[in-house]
């Protein structure tokens, strides 16, 4: 068994499941937003603000943001562990990969906090 401490769920199955579920959430959000915009051709600012300040919409948006964050974490972790490895670029790879991974995790979390601030600031 191969172990890794920087993957999101620590287990392959958990990461795989989170990636799938988050993809469904993002798809549902995209369909909803595109559908809403198409069904409301003359959208006013008041309508848009009312939609986004309602609690269910805030929850849906937050769920989507968390899904994007989790999906990005898993995806970026895969990309980084594919290409920044000791096999491919030598012994400095481990330190470099940890820096990139922690940087990626920090940026992802900051985006989530920022998004919460925006959502609840409407």
């Amino acid at each position: 068994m191969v172990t890794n401490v920087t993957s999101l769920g620590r287990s392959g199955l958990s990461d795989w499941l989170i990636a799938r579920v988050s993809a469904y959430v993002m798809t549902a959000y995209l369909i909803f937003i595109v559908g809403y915009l198409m069904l409301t051709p003359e959208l006013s600012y008041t309508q848009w603000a009312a939609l986004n300040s309602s609690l269910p919409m805030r929850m849906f948006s937050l769920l989507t943001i968390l899904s994007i964050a989790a999906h990005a974490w898993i995806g970026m972790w895969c990309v980084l562990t594919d290409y920044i490895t000791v096999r491919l670029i030598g012994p400095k790879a481990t330190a470099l990969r940890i820096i990139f991974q922690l940087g990626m995790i920090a940026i992802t979390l900051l985006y989530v906090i920022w998004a919460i601030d925006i959502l609840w600031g409407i």
Partner: protein
Amino acid sequence: MLNVSIYRYNPEVDSEPYMQDFEFDTQGKDIMVLDVLEKLKIEDPTLVFRRSCREGVCGSDGMNISGKNGLACVTPLSSVVKKNKLVIRPLPGLPVIRDLVIDMSQFYAQYEKIQPYMINDTPAPAIERLQSQEERAKLDGLYECILCACCSTACPSFWWNPDKFIGPSGLLQAYRFLADSRDTATEARLSNLDDPFSVFRCHGIMNCVQVCPKGLNPTKAIGHIRDMLMRTAT
């Protein structure tokens, strides 16, 4: 005349690999790629490749033929020659020992990891462990693998992490034992696979299915392993 371009590399002589061109007269016949190599080897005895049974059973002559992995002995020229040119390279992703011969240690190390043998700790019956026809049928499409490595060396996930990702061939074999009604180590086998690399580096691009010379479907077997992991997960 058919133009044949072959990857050459002899680490004792060459500083780096190069492609060597040969002219080959097929006499209008649709022969196998291995036949071409055999005849060219008579012309140039320094050309090195593996071969044994010459009928797609031993899995020795896996190579990259005009961009696609396959067994030279069962690949007719008509299926791979484009614009009168045949390009032959070693299987990608593993170290080259010489010309078309690759070092398959990493491939075998992954195969060894999945414990490719029956594990059954119950007392052996007098004659043999029986299976119903339905139980036996579950092994079809799994046991036929000849370990030619065409699939694993066509898989980018295996190229980048051959030390961590089991690869399509190893996983097909892993499922062959997981699916076997006579094997009692299912739980232990599954717990050895539930990490982010061993199985889950498969992103389902199905290169393995496209190249398998035996027409097997490792992606489907990997899907079954995922289902089994899901069922046993708490």
